[in-house]
Structures are given as C-alpha cells and as structure tokens.
C-alpha cells in the first residue's frame, strides 16, 4: 500500500466532502426549516460560480470577488424565494420537485444566455496557485487546502450559528413548530427568506471555490445537486450534523473508489477488465451506499427529532 497516495487521496476526499457539505448544508437547512425540496439549489451553486468568475476577471482579485459575490448570490437566493419558492411552501413535495425542476431550466438557460456556453476559467493569486508539501512526497495544491480550511470554518460557523445564536435557535424552533414561532412574535416569512438566502450563499460559496479548479460552467449545478441530495438523505434530512458526516462519507468514498477500485479489482480480474469495471462501480457507489443505508434506516443516519 502506498501510504503517501492514500493520505493524498484522503485529503482529496476530504476536500470533495467539504465542498459537498457546503452545498448540502444549504439544502438541508432549507429543507429542515421550510420543508421545501429545492432541486434548483445546484443552479444557485452555478450562479455563485459565474458571478464570482466574472468579478474575478473584472477586478483581478479572486478573494475580493468572493467577498462581493457572496451577498450577490444571497440576493439571488432571496429573489428566488420571494418570486417562486414562497408560493410553493404550502404545496406538496411533488410540486416542489416539479417547480424547482422548471427553475433549473430557467436558471441554466439564463446563465447560458448571459455567460455563454464556454464557461469561465478563474485565475488565482500566485500564493494560492502553488502546492504545499505536507510531508515527504505528499504534495497537494494550496488551493485545495484552502477549500478544506474554508469548508471546516464554514462547518464550524454553521455549528455555532445554529447552536449558539438567537437566529439559530429560531431556525431550529421554526423547523419544529412554525405556527408557534409566529405566534410568539417572530416574522416567520422574513426568517424563511433569510434562511433561503443563507442556503443560497452556502451553495454559491461552494461554486466560487470550485470554479478555479473546474471553471465556472453551465450544467455544473445539475451534476452536484443529485449528489447533494444523496448526502442529505443519507445524513437525515434537516440534520446539519448528518449532512456533515454524510458529505465527508460520500466525498471520501467517491474519491477512494476512483483511486483504488481498479487496483482492488485487478486482484481478481485482468487489468483491462478492472479498468473497465472500476469506473462503473465507482459511479454507482454512492447510490448503493444510499440505498443500503435507507434500507436499514429509512430516515437516514441522523433523523431529526421533530416533525
């Protein structure tokens, strides 16, 4: 076993997992408190990436662009809440799925019209563009370390927000009993819109962080949203802790599958057959994981106490 490779791949898995967590946390937050299935969450991730990419090229500074793009993405989320989502809360999940499916088409096509199909490559400042040698031979790109750091910081921040601030208490309270929260004098509609915007910002941040790696491109949302849903379902919908653990689980399993499945298969089949079979199984792996978990825990790993 090549331990250097193993550790590097663990870090890659961690990075992917944390990125997934950023998307999934917004999703689970919105679902947890609003009981709203938002398939278009991935499109907001894409919008965040594009806004940040454009700003980076315009301002010539990635970090500054992120700082400006975050509230802008939040505003997009707020607008979506007011224009569409708000009208869907009272309907059933089926309507949520269809309505936000339509929203995906709208947002993706708009992005295509505004930014073109080519996507935008996002330049990084030199100090982020290099590599870090963690120990002998284990080198990973600086920017990926930054993603890990930001991901952990956001996870910590969310944990603090949800558990120790008044807003967090209201979010939890709203998740269990909206009527009572309103009856005690809290403007629940504004609270909902805020939560929605916060979710949008989290997804947007994920998009901004991935753009310097994979470029900002149309269609990027549709790819991540399903994985993000898998994450929150595995974790238990509405559970922040569940989303965190499931995101890391999915990130690591996916990366490990891509890394080691072929050599694993090669132990009992030909190299060629292994290289053919491995991508197949690794693509299905997270779905198999999800089906297996739901078969035993129909509410995911950490089902929320209420509802």
């Amino acid at each position, binding site marked *: 076993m090549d331990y250097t490779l193993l550790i590097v791949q663990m870090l890659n898995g961690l990075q992917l997992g944390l990125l997934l967590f950023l998307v999934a946390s917004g999703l689970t937050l919105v679902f947890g408190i609003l009981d709203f299935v938002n398939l278009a969450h991935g499109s907001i991730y894409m919008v965040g990436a594009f806004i940040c990419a454009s700003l980076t090229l315009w301002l010539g500074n990635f970090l500054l662009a992120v700082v400006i793009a975050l509230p802008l993405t939040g505003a997009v989320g707020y607008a979506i809440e007011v224009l569409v989502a708000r009208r869907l809360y009272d309907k059933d999940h089926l309507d949520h799925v269809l309505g936000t499916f339509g929203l995906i088409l709208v947002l993706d096509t708009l992005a295509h019209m505004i930014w073109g199909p080519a996507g935008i490559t996002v330049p990084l400042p030199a100090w982020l563009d290099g590599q870090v040698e963690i120990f002998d031979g284990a080198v990973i790109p600086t920017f990926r370390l930054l993603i890990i750091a930001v991901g952990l910081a956001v996870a910590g921040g969310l944990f603090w927000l949800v558990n120790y601030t008044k807003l967090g208490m209201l979010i939890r309270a709203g998740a269990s009993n909206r009527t009572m929260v309103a009856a005690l004098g809290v403007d629940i509609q504004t609270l909902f819109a805020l939560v929605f915007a916060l979710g949008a910002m989290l997804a947007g941040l994920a998009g901004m962080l991935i753009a310097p790696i994979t470029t900002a491109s149309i269609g990027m949302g549709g790819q991540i949203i399903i994985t993000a849903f898998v994450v929150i379902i595995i974790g238990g919908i509405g559970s922040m802790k569940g989303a965190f653990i499931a995101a890391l689980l999915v990130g690591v399993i996916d990366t490990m599958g891509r890394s080691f499945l072929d050599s694993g298969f090669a132990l009992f089949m030909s190299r060629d057959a292994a290289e053919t079979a491995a991508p*197949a199984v690794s693509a299905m792996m997270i779905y198999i994981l999800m089906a297996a978990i*739901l078969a035993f825990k129909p509410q995911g790993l950490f089902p929320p106490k209420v509802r």
Partner: protein
Amino acid sequence: MLKMNKTGWVTLIGMAALAILPPLLLLNGQAFYMDLATRLVILAIAAVSLNLILGFGGLVSFGHAAFIGLGAYAVGIPAYHSMWGGFDLIASSNGLLHLALAVGVSALFALITGAISLRTKGVYFIMITMAFGQMAFFLFQSLEAYNGDDGLTIDLRSELPFLNLDEPMQLYALSYGSLVLVMLLVRMIVNSRFGVVLQGSKGNAERMVTLGYNPYVYRLTAYVISGAICGYAGFLLGNFTTFISPDMMHWTRSGELMFMVILGGVSTMFGPVLGASIFILLEEVLSSFTTYWHLPFGLMLIGVVLFIRGGLMGLFKGKGE
C-alpha cells in the same frame, strides 16, 4: 346516445385524434410527424403507468425512466447479440422473447427496488427511487459490452407474429393499440377491489391499517405492475428508435415523465396522455424557434405547478365529478 361527461368527451376526442391524424399525416408523406406521434404515444404509455402509482397510489416515483431503459435494453441486447454474435442464451430477434424480457426484467427490478423504497415515505421515497434510477443509469452507462453511454444502435427490430415493426404504420398501430389497452387495464385495476384499497392507502394509510389492510403489499404490487407496464413502453421505444442509450434512464427523464402526468392531471385516465402530448409538441415547437427553448419551457413548468391545480384535465372537470 351514450351519456358522457365532459372529461369523457375530451378523452374520446383526444384518443380519436391520435388514432386518425398520424396515419393521415404519414399518407401525406409527413413521415416525421408520424415519428413524433409514435414517440408521443409510447411516452404516454409510460406516463399512464406512472399515473397508476403516482396518481392513484400517491407514490411519487422519481426513477420511473429506469423502467423505460430496461425495457429498451431488453430489445437491444438480444438484438445486438443476434447480429454480432456472443451470449447465445439470449441472442435472438424474437419479439416475444424481447417482450417477455422487457416486462419480466422491469417487474423484477420494480420488485427489488420497490421492496426497499416503500419502506420509506415522503421525500425519502422520491429520492430513493431517484437513486435507484441513477443506479440503473450508471450501470448501463458503464456496460462496455453494450457501448456504455454511447448507446446501442440496433439494426433490427423485434420480430412479431402478424406485425412488421419496420413499417411505421404497423409500429404506430401497435403502440396506439397498446396505449388503449394499457389505459383500459389501468382503469380496471383502479376500479377493482385492489384499486380501491390502493387509493384508500393514498388517502389515509392509517385508516387502512386499522381496517386490516397492509398498505405495503398493495403498494408494492402496484409498483411492480407500473414498472412492468413502463418496461413495456421501453420495449416499444427501443423498437421505435432502434437506438438505446442510458440517457433514457437519466433522472431528468423521470422528471419529464412526472411532469407529463402532473400537466395532464393526476388520477385521471386521459390526463397522462394529454400531458405527454402537450409535452412532446411543446418541445418540438419551442425548440424549433430557439436554442434557448428551455427558458420558456421552464417558466411554463413553474406556471403549471403554481396555477393549474389538478392539471389540464382539471379544467374540463365539471362540478361533482
């Protein structure tokens, strides 16, 4: 004169139009519109099958496209082997074998995935069915033997007694006839003792349990029936396109099927057919105007969800119906 309500008339007129117009167009040399109608009718069968569990069973399956794909591959794989050799066990161009495989494999897949999925409820059910659909999608995407996600082009169609599916008119006749039969079948099931239990479980599962019914087995049965019918639609689709790709199973396809059912009107007989028709025609018309046709299409989707309660068939419903 038969006494009929408004929905009855809409159904009759719609089905008559589907019976008469496409052949007329074909005879006028408009082969493309015949193709369009064939695709429409086949997808309508799939939509009707989805409606059985979605509309009457309250089970929102977000992975139904997988059955279409399974049915199509049940045609493609034996045909492929009968053309290029290998895997003699199923290498065949016999349509009846294809048909049996399509229905059998779909039913089996429905039984296994349904048994697990139906343990969950609500949004979990939506998502786990989607996950199973994606599993099938990725499985076929990576089956190198059948060209993976490049898809399988087959140069022959199923050979059936009395029918030549290479003839567009006969293929259409088969598809249309199948649609009528499937609609009648679903209506029969829905009105049967099994059907009322299924609908009762949708309306109030708790009550059904206290009466001594176990909703799980009724739902699973309906899920299997629905999957088998949808697999049959896949059998037709495979024969129609002679090109079969994992794309047929992608989650967005399942979303489109759901949209057809909702657009037309859930738990109505003709609703899914109407929905499929509008969907196919809109797609055709909008995409001929602009590359950005997904924009108006998406807006319309949102509009339907927000404003048209009960789908288009709801507009025809009189009071007390």
